[in-house]
């Protein structure tokens, strides 16, 4: 067997970046109106350098519709895959993910409560739903993990997933109760729950970029701790990892990532489950390599899912979550089958 490098090599970064950019460009070009790659590149280059744009329809399609959407999709995919990879390492559980653990549902509940009760933060007008989503994501994680530890210290795959599923059902019923009593806010809530990355704008891109940059580096610098956790929490303690501190940092970071993604694009299931699993087969379980590779992989996966959602039943556009869930459910069963066989 050939030796795997400890770090991600520069060459690998270049390859992953190139593939991601190629997919990104493809997703901008393809759609209800197809735009040649050359035009796309010209328009983006002009926009970046400030050169005046030629008179054409393509300019507004690219710059105000497709580019922000594609960037949001890529960033959401990267963020979700990264948080999935981190959780799978921390909990030593290949099925852990925001959607299987119920964290995404928790985040949605937070967002719905924020809308229904009009929770706003004066300094940050758009941040009400986002902050509530993050807080609820974190509280959900604490609750689910706390309960799992109580029932089964080893955090076995089945216990934690079962609790996650039950928690998701519980949360969605609470959400329905809130909606029933929301009165005139029903429209806003419905609008949010139906919301997707379809109508993304540059503000969303900016927020996602910030969250991804900060949380991504925090997680990346915890790669060694995550490796130790992936072998086992006891083993991590034995080799000298500050177990409590690491857990707290990773859980908060993951909550922020998921909270931001959910508040912008709604619940997109299984990205964080499928991507790290596939990437692990490619680069191995070492988080120094797995985390960056998952981020790239998540971006590509969600971009392709978004593309499929747009063109498969064109002119009807599927919600992106439908595509990821279709793929994700199959992969989930595959992983579950494999872990049971072992």
């Amino acid at each position, binding site marked *: 067997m050939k030796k795997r490098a400890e770090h991600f090599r520069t060459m690998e970064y270049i390859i992953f970046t190139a593939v991601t950019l190629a997919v990104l460009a493809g997703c901008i070009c393809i759609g209800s109106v197809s735009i040649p790659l050359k035009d796309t590149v010209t328009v983006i280059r002009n926009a970046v350098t400030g050169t005046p744009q030629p008179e054409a329809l393509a300019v507004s399609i690219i710059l105000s519709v497709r580019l922000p959407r594609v960037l949001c999709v890529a960033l959401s995919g990267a963020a979700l895959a990264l948080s999935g990879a981190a959780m799978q390492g921390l909990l030593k559980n290949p099925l852990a993910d925001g959607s299987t653990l119920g964290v995404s549902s928790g985040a949605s509940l937070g967002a719905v409560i924020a809308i229904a009760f009009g929770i706003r933060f004066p300094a940050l007008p758009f941040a009400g739903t986002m902050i509530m989503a993050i807080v609820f994501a974190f509280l959900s994680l604490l609750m689910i993990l706390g309960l799992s530890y109580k029932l089964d210290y080893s955090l076995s795959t089945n216990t934690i997933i079962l609790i996650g599923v039950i928690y998701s059902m519980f949360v969605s019923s609470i959400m329905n109760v809130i909606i029933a009593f929301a009165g005139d806010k029903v429209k806003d809530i419905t609008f949010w729950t139906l919301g997707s990355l379809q109508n993304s704008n540059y503000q969303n891109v900016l927020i996602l970029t910030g969250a991804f940059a900060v949380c991504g580096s925090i997680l990346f610098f915890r790669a*060694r701790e995550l490796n130790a956790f*992936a072998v086992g929490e*006891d083993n991590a303690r034995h080799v*000298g*990892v500050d177990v409590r501190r690491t857990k707290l940092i990773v859980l908060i970071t993951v909550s922020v990532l998921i909270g931001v993604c959910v508040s912008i694009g709604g619940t997109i299931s299984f990205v964080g489950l499928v991507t790290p699993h596939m990437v692990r087969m490619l680069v191995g*379980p070492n988080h120094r390599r797995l985390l960056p590779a998952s981020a790239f992989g998540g971006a590509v996966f969600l971009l392709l899912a978004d593309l499929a959602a747009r063109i498969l039943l064109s002119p009807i556009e599927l919600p992106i979550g439908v595509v990821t869930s279709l793929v994700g459910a199959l992969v989930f069963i595959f992983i579950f089958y494999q872990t049971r066989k072992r």
Partner: protein
Amino acid sequence: MLEVKDLTVVYGTHTVIDDLSFRIEEGQWLMVVGPNGAGKSTVLNAVTQGAPYTGSILLNGTDIKRQKPSARARQIGVLAQNHHVSYDFTVEEIVRLGRYAYASGLFSGSGDGDEGAVEYAMELTGMTPKRNQSVLTLSGGELQRTFLAQVLAQNPRLLLLDEPTNHLDLVYQKQIFALIGQWLKTPGRAVLSVVHDLSLARAFGTDALLMHKGKAVAQGKTGAVLSPETLDPVYGMDVYEWMRTMLSQWSLEE
């Protein structure tokens, strides 16, 4: 080296360890023995801060509760009973984790002496040829040797063993214990191991601590503690006779 004073561990209403005191000096191999449920493994968990306790555990005079986890790991290494690895890490990646406590800063992959310690540990345990193999493909004995290499790479002064050979074949049990015996020969080191098998304790230990229902029943030199007078009441049977017949399997010459 290690001094445990008035250690008490309570889980809910159940007192697992009741006011236990003992000490280990350099060069000693202390065998903690006793029937199931005596609290043997809990002693180890308390020392590694994996179980809440009252009382004090001092390592060379400093309270280990106040030590940073990484500082503690440079002094104390643990070899656990079982390992269930979920992901296909290579042998070398597992062994390298033993150097975690020595890395300074966020970026450092390997500091000075890391390579040497990792290579030496894999060489000593005979895992060098399998260094790039996935741990998911190893036999039970090889997996245990991999984790032994990890803890040796950690270069601790005190090694804690929690029935590390319980599920292994006799050949592997002997291999592991012989390796640890060799490791202990370097001055300034000590071993504390929890064992189930009294004959094993007798064959390798210098000292022994006999526990029963969370209390120390007897402690001292192995020969004195593992005698019929102390063992039979605790186990409620004639264990000594049984142990004598079992001892032959550990004959170290050959």
